[in-house]
Each structure stands twice: as C-alpha cells, then as structure tokens.
C-alpha cells in the first residue's frame, strides 16, 4: 500500500528535482510516441529540446525564445498574484486583446506624425485597456458577487468579436485594398516596438517582462502586499483579521493581471505581430495560466516555465518542418509534459510511504 504523507515544509530538493524529473519522463514517453509514429526518437527529442538552443542556427532561435516567451511570462506574473489570493482571472486572453486594441488605436490615431511621445502613450493606453477590461469582472464580483471565472471567460469572446470589428472597421488599413487588418505598426517608427539591440530579440516587452519578474519577486518576498496576497489565499479569515480589505484585494489583483496582460498585448501588436487582425490573438492568455502553475506561482519559476513552453513551441516547429512530425504529436507531447510537471509536484509537498498505513 502506498500512501502520501504531507510534509511539514515543502521539500527544497524535490522542488528543484521535480521539473527535471518531469522533463525526463516526457522525453521517455514522448520518445515512445515518436518511435510509434515511425520517427527516430532520439533525433526528435534532440530537435525539440536542444536544437533551439544548441544547433547551428541557434543564433536565430535563441532570440525567438525571448519573443515567444516574453508575453507568456508577463501575463503569468500578473495572474500569479490573483491565483495566490484565490482570485481566478482566466480571461487574460481578453485583456491581452483589449490592451492591444487600445494601444494600437492610440498609435494609429497619430499616424503619420513622428514623435517620441507616441510609443509611451501607446504603452499607457495598452495597460489602461487591459486593466479596465479586467475591472469588469472585478467590479461585478465586488458589487454583485458574480463569479469572476465565468465573467472573465465570457469577456474573452466579447474581446475577440471586438477585435474582428476593429480589424474590419475602425482600425482597418485605408491603404489595404479592402482587406482586413490595421496598418503595420512595426513599419511606423514612432509606434514600433523594435528590438533594442538588433537581432537580440530584446524588444521592450521582453525588458518589461524581466522587470515584472524582479518586481514580483520583491513584492512577494519583501513587501506587505505580497504577504497579504499569500495570507488572503491561504486563510481568508486570517487575512480579514489582519486588516486585509477583500474588496481592494480583488480589484488590485484583477487590475494588476489585466494591466500586465494589456501591456503584453500592446508590445506584441506594436512589435512582433505588427498589426491588429482578425486572428491576432494566439492563446497566450490561456497558455500563461498553465505557465503560472508550472512555475508554482513563483516569479523565477514562471520565468523558467515560460522559457520551457517557448522552447517546446519553437522546437516543435523545427521538428515539424525538418522531420515531418505532425503538429498533433507535438501538442500531445506538450500535454504530457504538463501532466508530468503537475504530477511530480506531489513529491515536493508530500512524502511517499510504502507499506501499510499505521493505525494510530
């Protein structure tokens, strides 16, 4: 009989070892899957996990990891505060979209004026847009007790429709031959979120994501706000006695996650994506939820988890094009990786005991 016994403290060794164990398990099971599909398992695993970092074209892939990982990390950092406090904003995708729309709208309003002030104004608009969109479920929860999971999820669909309407209407490129989509912001110097050092992948969104990680780390470990967040999550009653205002906590956490998601949207639309289009959003807001949990809601963990997700995306693309692996197999492997990461975490918080349970 195998039983689990809760550890008094999470195990430090296991908290570091479990992610490695999960990756190893994924490589084994993924290898079996790839072998079953008639591919060389070793070559496939190497392509997905190592080629983006160490192949001869790694100089191209490494910056791409930053571009792909930055929005995930930025959004996940914002979400992690709410998740710790027991506030479930799962509509980051919608806040990401609205941030992008607001930021892009400000930039396009100035077109073709050139001024250094435009990009900062766009950032502010993006953050405000995301924040306001997240405030809708926040305020409804505070005022009417509605469930924020549902409202924030519903608002994702509303935001998607809003974006289609913008891409086809108000923000449509007047010189675009009637096709949907806005002007390309990355070709409009004052509004472009360009790489700070050419070829490095370091655009302003990457910088912001790194700053967010540092701030989150300080806030959680050193600041009273971080303490209150953790307290509200672990014991709402105790938090109340400690003078934490639950209403303020909800609004701050929703606003924070919305603002960062909005910023991520703005940096994406002004840089790598370039334009508002019908299919602008690609699910960063949802993937970021997974990233937040894979990172154990810890800023450094989120940074690593975001990098790992980005790695499997990029490695997966290489495997598709070089080895002819279907996308489905890569999705399946990503799913496995997540399952294993979530499953082995039990070892961090629980000790496994073999043998019959002792009667006390």
């Amino acid at each position, binding site marked *: 009989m195998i039983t689990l016994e809760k550890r008094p403290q999470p195990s430090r060794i296991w908290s570091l070892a479990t992610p490695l164990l999960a990756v190893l398990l994924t490589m084994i099971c993924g290898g079996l899957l790839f072998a079953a599909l008639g591919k060389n398992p070793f070559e496939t695993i190497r392509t997905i996990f190592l080629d983006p970092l160490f192949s001869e074209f790694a100089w191209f892939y490494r910056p791409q990891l930053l571009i792909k990982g930055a929005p995930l990390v930025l959004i996940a950092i914002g979400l992690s505060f709410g998740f710790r406090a027991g506030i479930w904003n799962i509509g980051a995708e919608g806040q990401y979209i609205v941030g992008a729309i607001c930021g892009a709208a400000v930039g396009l309003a100035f077109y073709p004026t050139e001024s250094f002030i435009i990009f900062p104004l766009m950032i502010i608009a993006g953050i405000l847009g995301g924040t306001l969109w997240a405030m809708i479920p926040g305020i409804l929860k505070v005022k*009417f007790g509605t469930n924020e999971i549902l409202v924030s999820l519903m*608002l994702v669909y509303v935001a998607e429709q809003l974006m289609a309407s913008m891409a086809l209407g108000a923000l449509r490129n007047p010189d675009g031959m009637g096709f949907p989509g806005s002007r390309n912001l990355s070709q409009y110097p004052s509004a472009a979120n360009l790489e700070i050092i050419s070829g490095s992948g370091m655009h302003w969104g990457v910088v912001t994501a790194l700053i967010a990680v540092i701030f989150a780390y300080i806030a959680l470990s050193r600041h009273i706000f971080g303490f209150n967040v953790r307290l509200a999550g672990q014991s709402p009653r105790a938090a109340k006695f400690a003078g934490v205002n639950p209403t303020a906590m909800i609004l701050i956490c929703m606003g924070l996650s919305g603002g960062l998601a909005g910023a991520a949207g703005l940096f994406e639309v002004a840089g790598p994506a370039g334009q508002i289009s019908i299919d602008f959003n690609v699910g960063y807001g949802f993937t970021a939820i997974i990233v937040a949990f894979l990172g154990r809601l810890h800023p450094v963990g989120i940074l690593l988890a975001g990098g790992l997700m980005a790695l499997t995306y990029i490695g997966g693309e290489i495997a598709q094009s070089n080895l002819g692996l*279907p996308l489905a197999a890569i999705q399946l492997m990503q799913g496995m990786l*997540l399952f294993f990461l979530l499953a082995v975490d039990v070892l961090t918080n629980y000790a496994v005991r073999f043998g019959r349970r002792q009667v006390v």
Partner: protein
Amino acid sequence: MDLSAINPILLLASLMVAATPILLAAIGELVVERAGVLNLGVEGMMITGAVCGFIVAVNTGSPWLGFIGAAIGGALLSVIFGVLTQFLLSNQVATGLALTLFGLGLSALMGQGYIGIKAPSFPDWHIPLLGDIPVIGPIIFQHDPMVYLGLGIVAATWAFLKYSRAGLILRAVGENHEAAHALGYHVMRVRMLAIMFGGACAGLGGAYLSLVRVPQWTEGMTAGAGWIALAIVVFASWRPGRLLLGAYLFGGVTVLQLNLQAAGAAIAVEYLSMAPYLATIAVLVIMRAGRAPGSLGQSFHASR
C-alpha cells in the same frame, strides 16, 4: 427587414438540436463540479469523444456503437485528469487546461485517415401520434434519439442529485470534503466516478457534433463548444433545471442573431455575436448566481 420570415416554431425546433452538444457536455461538468472538482478540460474531452465516436461508428456502421465508444473515450481521457488531481493532488485549473491541449493533439492524431469520410446516418425519430400534434409535434417530437437522451440525462441527473442517497453523498463531498470524509465517505472514489461521468457526457456531446451535426471528422471541430458548456454550468448555478434554460437561452441568442441577419435586419454582426456572452453576464448579475459548491477546485488529502 421582414421579421415575418422568422418562423418561431421552426426556430424552437432547431434550438433543441443546436443546444444538444453543449447540454450534454454541461450536464456532465455539472455533476463534476457538484462533487467539488473543477475540470476545465471539457473541450479536450469533447473532441476526443468526437473522434472516438466517429472512428467506432465508421468501422462498425452503427452510430449507437459510436456514441458508446465516444462515452468510453471521453471517460478514459478524464481518468488522466482524475488520477492527477485526486491521487497526485495537482492543481485542477492547470490540469484541466493541459487536458484540453492533450485532447486536441490526441484527437488530431487519431483522426488521421478519417478525413473526408461521412458518418453513417442517424435518422430522426418521428414519434407516432405525438409527432403529429400540430405546432408542438414538430417542435418537440421529431428529432433524433440523442436529443431525447440528452434531456433524459438532465432529468435523471436532477432526480439523482435531489432524491437519491448517492446524490446526497456526492453533494456532501462537494460542499465539504473534510466533513464527508469524517462521516466515512470515500471522497476520492466519489470524485473519480463523477469525473468519469463528466468525461463520458462530454464525449457524447462531441460525438453529437461528429456523428449528427456535421457529420464528419475534421480537426478542432468542436471549435470552443466545451468552453461554452463550462460557462453554462456556472450560469445555471449548478442546477440541472436552469442548465436546460441556460443552454436554450445561449443557443437561442445565437440562432436569433442569425435569424435577424437572414431577415435583413441592419445590425452590426460583431456586436450581435457578442450578445450571447453579454447576455450571460447580464443574467448572472440579475440572477445573482447561486453559491458554488463549497469545496470546488480544492484538492483533498486525507491526512489520516
């Protein structure tokens, strides 16, 4: 604009069919959530059910066997979620999202080689006598059997939760797992069964798309229906009766906006497409949605 073109009888009749897949998936998720488990992987289980059902139906020629295969496929996938969340105590939100990713990949891989094939036909029932009643007959009594099975499952679930002892235990587990455990109930066993029921229902919902509604296999064919099912559960404040109302209301707004367009109403399509979601939020605020099960989304570990 010619609103007289909209025939309310036909509108209601098509609504019953349109609501069936989300209704099936939602009733399963409702039971799961009443047991205190939040499984966000409905979309993944639906699409897996869709492909399993399709494969079985095409190979056996029997849609009925297809539906059984879909239920088994959905339930098997949900077992992964159950083991992870119940025995390995992983976070339910993240596990559910991972399940969706996994299900999308798995279904695409399984469905290779089944593209462009049509499913065996699944005829409507024309219920004798009842189906001939004017007005009501075509609305209610001339659909395929799965429409009635879906309604039957909703009714059975309602009765199960309200009147049976097992239903009472399930609710107790969902409301307060510590107390239920102290009373000697097997929290994990109850939850595993609920999760598998949820998976089976989601599988049926997916198969309704691939075997009746479309009826073909294409990758990603559920196109977000699983997420709508999740929404309806909360909308219904975890009550089977309201679930029915929610599924019809939600489907109704979509069908109505398409009807208005076809009738030539000058309306902004994007804004009307938002309508079902905004309506859900509005109703949520007005109805002050009921309280969620007490232990929803929390892991349970019996320390002794």
